[in-house]
């Protein structure tokens, strides 16, 4: 079903080789912050599937059908989604020429406008798919077109984060709309592609090797999303390559740092830890919809990260190994209680993948992820532009 490349086949079928590869990656990731900007290996055969980010055509149809049938948990999840302010078709765009995301006191421009607009565009795109109400399609397109027409400069100290997070949601909206709404004019689509390539991509192109892993990950998932929408395979390979063996904190093995599932940001705080594994999961979902299995890499390391984080935030103790991150800037000697227990809407996706989409994973290996999903169900928004959120609506699969 999925056209796995040679690399993932090796991982799936040869544990000895896997161990060697992991060791090699650790050796190669010299923990510096210098990139050799070589063309990455090809991970994906052409062409891309559209829509093919978080939601395939089948996913969108499933949401629509289940909501129409009034089946749970989709029914309740949709009610929560529909009642969210960013799902409203009355949203007007607030496009500007210049957005700055900055940590400097007194700096920062229009980032709030962008965040709200990309979330609204995405949620209206899903609303259009689920309800068929063209008002939502028009709102999504209106927002995207307004930004594509206006937006020219994205900068600031935290631009990598801002660009990665926001472009992911805007591309997610655009990917759905291009595939489902023929009235979106081709010339507008081209302008949109140009905005993704010329405004959003430059800040994220070199990732964020000096920062906590969620920065790299924002860049990676944003890059992966742009690549699919713009049919740019080299860009796609660049993002996927970083997931497997990038030298920053955002690559999978640098973010979920051991077999226990400890996160690079576990010693920082829990919200960022959930943000980061949520990003990883979103990349995996794009990969899945493009026929790749990134979930299973390194013996389902992603799931271990989810289990560790869910378990701790559900109130249980977890082992913590003092750890200095790959950048060397953020040593941690104990797990952080900051934000503990405030679960974010990221668990349904991974729970459903392991419980219902693939076979052979014992339930005790995802029990904490399930508990977190159960506790939140139906999941709400993904905290501004951080994660997709609404996982109960988006990712719930029919139980066999």
């Amino acid at each position, binding site marked *: 079903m999925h056209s796995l490349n040679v690399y993932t086949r090796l991982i799936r079928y040869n544990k000895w080789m896997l161990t060697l590869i992991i060791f090699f990656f650790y050796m190669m990731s*010299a*923990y*510096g*912050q*210098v*990139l*050799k*900007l070589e063309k990455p290996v090809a991970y994906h055969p052409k062409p891309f599937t559209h829509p093919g980010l978080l939601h395939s055509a089948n996913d969108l149809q499933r949401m629509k059908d289940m909501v129409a049938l009034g089946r749970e948990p989709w029914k309740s999840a949709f009610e929560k989604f529909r009642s969210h302010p960013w799902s409203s078709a009355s949203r007007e765009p607030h496009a500007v020429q210049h957005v700055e995301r900055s*940590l*400097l*006191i007194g700096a920062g421009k229009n980032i709030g406008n962008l965040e709200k607009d990309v979330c609204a565009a995405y949620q209206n795109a899903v609303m259009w798919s689920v309800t068929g109400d063209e008002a939502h399609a028009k709102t999504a397109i209106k927002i995207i077109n307004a930004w594509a027409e206006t937006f020219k400069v994205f*900068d600031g*100290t935290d631009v990598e984060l801002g660009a990665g997070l926001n472009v992911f949601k805007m591309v997610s909206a655009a990917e759905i709309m291009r595939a489902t709404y023929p009235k979106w004019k081709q010339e507008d689509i081209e302008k949109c592609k140009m905005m993704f390539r010329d405004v959003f991509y430059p800040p994220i192109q*070199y*990732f*964020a*090797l*000096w*920062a906590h892993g969620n920065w790299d990950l924002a860049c990676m998932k944003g890059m992966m999303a742009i690549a699919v929408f713009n049919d740019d395979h080299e860009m796609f390979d660049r993002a996927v390559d970083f997931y497997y063996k990038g*030298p*920053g904190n955002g690559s999978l093995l640098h973010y979920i740092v051991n077999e226990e599932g400890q996160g690079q940001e576990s010693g920082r705080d829990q919200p960022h830890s959930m943000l980061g594994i949520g990003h990883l999961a979103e990349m995996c979902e794009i990969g899945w919809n493009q026929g790749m299995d990134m979930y299973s890499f390194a013996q389902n390391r992603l799931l271990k990260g989810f289990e560790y984080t869910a378990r701790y935030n559900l109130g249980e103790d977890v082992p913590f190994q003092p750890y200095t991150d790959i*950048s*060397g*800037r953020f040593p941690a000697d104990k797990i952080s209680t900051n934000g503990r227990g405030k679960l974010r809407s990221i668990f349904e996706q991974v729970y459903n993948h392991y419980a219902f989409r693939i076979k052979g994973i014992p339930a005790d290996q995802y029990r904490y992820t399930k508990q977190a999903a159960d506790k939140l169900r139906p999941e709400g928004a993904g905290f501004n532009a951080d994660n997709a959120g609404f996982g109960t609506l988006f990712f719930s699969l029919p139980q066999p």
Partner: protein
Amino acid sequence: MNKVIIFLIFPLLMQFVDKAFGHVPAPVSPKSIYVSVSGSDRADGSVTKPLRTISYAVSRAMPGDRILVSAGVYRESVVFERGGSSEHKRITLQALNQAKVMIKGSDRKTGWVKDKNKLWKCMLDSFQTGMMLFFNDKKMVNVSTLQECSNALRWTKTMENGKTIILANFGTSDPNVGLTEILVRNVGISARSGVDYLTIEGIAISQIFNDYASIYAEQPGAIDTKNGKYWNIIGCSISECHAVGISIGIPGHVYADANPGRPEFNDYTDLASVGHHKIKENHIFNCGQAGVFGLIGGTSSTIEDNLIENINQDGGYTGNESAGIRLAMAVDATITHNLIRRVYGKNGYGVFLGPIFQGARLSRNIISDSGAGLFYLFKNHGPVLFDNNILAMADTADKDMAGVKMEASEANVFVQNLFYNCSFYNGRQPGKSVSTSNFLPHSLVIKQTIPALDIDHRLYGNLFIGKGAGIAKPAGGEADFNLYADGALPLSWADLNSSKAENSFSFRLEHNQKGVELFWKKEALKPIKIPVLTAEFLGFFALSKQYIEYPDGKKIMIDRDFLNAVSGTLERTPGPFYQGKGLKPRIKLF
């Protein structure tokens, strides 16, 4: 004494009179204004009727004008009230026909009377704390007690009733007959704050009693750019200054509440409005703290072909900011082919950079005999290029002392240098905040403010004699294609394609009055295959989002050696001389 006062105030008085009675001629630019010790400030400043003081000439100069000074000693402080208006409309202060023009911060002191025990005595009407005395151009040693004045050329002072009593030992000489000078001025050439586009050429400045400088406070210099930019200081001689020879600094301050939202050095945001100085072919010597010093003024500046020597020679400066060249916030600074030698004191460095010198390049410099090491690189995210430098620690230096000290300084790229007895220190800064900013390439736009580490260094194609770098593998560090000789050891974690010389180089530098030569047994050179050292080969420095680049953003390829020879082949000798065995056993370096 009254004569001295009249001499001092006369030029000022004349300026006042001229201004008050409308004697300032209407500006007709560009023009030449002539100055001579035999001139008069009531003259018109023409070649036949020169002015007497440089200060008065400066007050009359307009953009595009040239002030031409005849030979002589000018005992005044020159302060520009205005500068040029562009690169092509500078105000130039220049020695006429390369005449020997000297601005002195001292006044001649006569009126000495004999005291007991071979001492001479004089009285100053004011209370003076800091002071320096020269006799027949030799600096006299200030001592604390009368007993210590028993040797010649020593002096001490006491205060009585608000007056300063000086007691000095001139040996068998009479201070009223010889040239006895007391330093009374704290600046040679300066400007009102923010004066741009000045050229100072061929002027000697000496005997300036300026205060010590700090990156976090005032930074007075014998020549002091005072927040101006685009100054050219060329072919000048700066000597016998109490502290800094040339200051290109803007007064700094302590950032007590620094945090990532309000980091240190966030006051400077526009690269075009700072620095851009050219400091070239100057001789800076016998200055008590540093040759060239400055916060921010090093940004986009070029410092080249200067001879800087005998810094802090009497050990009077005991702070930690002494160096031949000491710069902070020196983004895209270019420091090329300077000879820096004999920087004294346990904190005296050849070049001390930091915090922040992203994009700087240090190339073809010869640095030797510094009390604390040759390079001190502090708090920076890089990248910085060091190529074709010749760095020689003194044979008498403490064996444990590192020649290159990198502290919380990332991404230093060392290529084709010659290191003699020069090991490295590479560390963080324990117990202190190391967060510092990096900028968007070739700008002062703060990109990130995060801890500076000890990572990402490069050591390619260098020649190590006597000592190797001797550092543990830094994260992201790379080293290869180096040549090791005379006991220098390759790095255990790298150097796969490096080589060891079989014979001794018998390396030595031989200094003369104005230069230095290298002597060695060139037969020890051993060619190896070295890849083309392109910017891509050295890597993309992801934090700073740049390669090794020129200030205009173009990538640097290191394909020239110290002698400007072009690399024609991959097989060549590591170090700063491509020619290898074809070289002479004696090479003039400066």
